[in-house]
């Protein structure tokens, strides 16, 4: 698997660390309640198809990336800097 890092270009999967669903970008407030935190920390759409997840170019530029890809085909469509997605 290869990911097109916006900073470094296309690199092998072994340079990247995988965290999970990009839902973690939307951190609830401290007092959002048990259900909101449960959804944030644990519950996942877990799509069989297109997904957005969070990767870290640990062996490269050390950028956290939001990667759009397909869990059925492993096609990778886009990678965007997480800090840009957040802003």
């Amino acid at each position, binding site marked *: 698997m290869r990911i097109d890092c916006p900073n470094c270009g296309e690199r092998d999967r072994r340079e990247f660390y995988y965290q999970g669903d990009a839902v973690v970008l939307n951190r609830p407030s*401290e007092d959002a309640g048990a259900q909101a935190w449960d959804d944030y920390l644990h519950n996942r759409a877990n799509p069989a198809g297109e997904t957005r997840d*969070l990767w*870290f170019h640990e062996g490269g530029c050390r950028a956290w990336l939001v990667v759009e890809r397909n869990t059925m085909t492993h096609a990778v469509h886009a990678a965007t800097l*997480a800090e840009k997605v957040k802003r």
Partner: protein
Amino acid sequence: MRLATPEKTVTFTFDGQRIKGVPGEPVSAALLAAGIKLVARSFKYHRPRGIMSAGSEEQNALVTVGRGTAQEPNVRATTLEVSEGLEVFSQNAWPSLKHDVMAVNDLVSPFLAAGFYYKTFMWPRSFWEKLYEPIIRRAAGLGALSGESNQDTYEKAFAFCDVLVIGAGPAGLMAALTAGRAGADVVLADEDTAMGGRLLREREDVDGKPAADWVVEALAELEAMPNVRLMTRTTVTGAYDQGTYGALGRIAGGRAAGKPLECFWRIVAKRAVLCAGALERPIAFPNNDRPGVMLASGVRAYVNRWGVAPGKAVAVFGNNDDAHRTARDLAAAGVKVAAVIDSRDDAKVEGDFPLYTGAEVIATKGRHALESITIKTGNGTRVIRCDCLAVSGGWNPTVHLTCHMNGRPTWDVGIASFVPTPESIPGMVTAGACNGAFSTAACLNEGAEVAAGVVADLGLAAEIKTPSADDAAYAIQPLWAVEGKGRKWIDFQNDVHVKDVRLAAQENFRSVEHMKRYTTQGMAPDQGKSSNVVALAVLADATGRGIPETGTTTFRPPYVPVSIAVMGAGSQGKGFAPERFTTSHSASVDRGAPMIEAGLWYRPSYFPKEGESHWRQSCDREVGYVREAVGICDVSTLGKIDIQGPDAAALLDFVYTNGFSTLKVGRVRYGLMLREDGHVMDDGTTARLGETHFVMTTTTAAAGLVMRHLEYVLQAIRPDLDAQVISVTEQWAQFAVAGPKSRELLNTVLDQPITDEDWPFMACGAVSVGGVAGRLFRISFSGEHAYEVAVPSRYGESLFRQLVAQAEVMGGGPYGMEALNVLRIEKGFITHAEIHGRTTAFDIGMERMVSAKKDCIGKAAAARPGLLGESRQQLVGLKSKGVDHALSAGAHLFDKGASHSRVNSKGYVTSVCYSPTIGTHLGLGFLENGRARHGEVIVLRDHLRNITEEVEVCDPVFFDQDGGRARG
């Protein structure tokens, strides 16, 4: 029998027999030339087997090469190159290949039908491990490993290209020529020792000249192109995501030349052209497995390419025109063609040999070598004497790689086989025989056209220029299995025959996957390359379905077996993970310290002195240094993260449970870090060197994790914070100087002496050490008056040696991990033995460190009801009854009088030591509602080491509870 006398020969041995081979040829060719028919025994019934093919798809001729550490089992004699002195052995036979005791299995084979073992060997229950399984295991297996550690070298490498062409037959050569001429960066990989594919094996013309001559010209052109790399002996084994391919390269003469044996390639290609050709399939007829029964294409390869006649009188049996080439080529080479048997009524063959149409082979004779066959024609049966039978059941396109991403091939009625489904692998196209185009002309054309399309995609222009060649149509009438008495083998390697497949269907293993798993068809070393389509056809027939409806099993990587050594190249011994060394490493080794692994680092366990025979003596002495004088310890392995920026303090407020914006410049604070799920991630101290400049310390184990976490928080959670983080663990060498005489010692190395007033407990700042700009932190992991002094790494070794020398003058010295551990247990300081990922701030008694004034990572989740409360196991100290009562880590804790069972386990012990300071054994552990139980006596039970001890529950801080020594 050789058709011509070779110019040069080498000598190798097969089961000790000296055999001459011609350099370049496979062992199988030399064995056939020497008239050796019996080369192997089959897996289950130990049936005598010979050589079947001339390629990597070989089912029967598996041999062992070499002895001792070089011993390599299950090597295909058809791809093993002969070399001087090569030792080849038959396998899976005892005491000898000719007289194999296990052949008794063949005699009782009626009782060993597919899946018989699921139905028996159940009584009595204990006999499985004791009796049945050992017998089955010994009978099973093919070759043997030597049991000795590998001594050979292997390599891994990366390659990148525009176009990867897989297979260098007519289609592959044309594809490479076309793409290369267009200027693309091309890799052409072929598993054979020479490129050309079937053009090296067939008698036909290309571009008006013998095919082999055309190949020479094509290769010369390719070699002359700087943008084309030719990789022979390289099998592309797997197709992976985003154009990544795995390939196994065998290095020519590797061992003899002192080179690696193999190289595993990861080839990244923008596009790939699969030109993998096709594999001939056998026909299932009674006793079709005798040594001497071969695939027709294999027979032609031996005759045409290697100049070896596989027999003196060869019969040919087929269901397609292509088989007739075999008879023609044999006759042309002067080998007697005993008969051509064609199952089709209307087959026409020209040639001077007996022809039987509408005929089938219904029996064979000859135990260790074929002697005769019996055929059935419209006029009855007839026995034909022959020592070789060339069989062609048609061709299966080599679709394997196209299935590696779960693609299913498509049934093509015209060729009665599967062809690749387009776009099964993104970026890969197929051409030639692997695509179902079987004539040489069609292969050349497809190779050129497909490559032209590929380079056009890459923005290059290609010219399609193909030479003339044979363009005969491929006519086939499917013939899968011939009825008759005797077993009709389908999967030769795993001894699966037609009746096994039918039995599977009868027992409702009708799905092709069930049939495969029940009969083991397709699970042998060749992974069903030759047997799959025949087995499917027989299953389809038995279940009354068509073949497309029956479906096919999935081909999975690797295409050919790949050694563990080559895919794991470089990892044997220490290569598995990087080794990290502190600057004091050699100084510690010089003092005889045993170095132990701490993550990727090595740290000294203790520093033995003369007269000490046990590590405990050294450890106790080193603890004494710190408690009474001064000790030196390299703490550089702890993670150090430099944090700067206007929002650096805000970042720390967010990642630590406690506040850091209130920390004064020149001061250090202990911090507790949670994971977002509310459990403790790590702890450590952070120093404020300036208004916007901090240095964070992490534990050794969590250094990488915490660094990643900070970057995660800054980029993915709080990009609003203006702060930068960078790891400086490697940049600074840092040493603990601990003990009552620590300041005195430091003042011998610092350019400006320090005082208690300037450097109170938890102070930090810049210092000058022998003219070198360093940092000093007054922090303590031992509970003593202590400092950590840091200098740039290049001065580390020098400073360490100087500190140790000074300490020794003052009655102290260096201390290792063992003493460090004792010192911190005496003080109740936690490590990852306690914060093991399941503990909360509440559990370790630090819930008050979770600031109510601000949000932080993990705060919300830590408030979940399950993470708080009496039912949690809480950190406690455990004191033994005395020096003779050692405690053990990993033991569980029970109330006195309770039985030692799961339901009664109230906790467990995480860390233990003998405390020379207190004079007894101490432990840290977790105990249900433990903070309320200080003073109680409970029971520690370690079943594994058979230790039962009564222990007193106490505060985890055993020594100097008010912390006066560290502050003083």
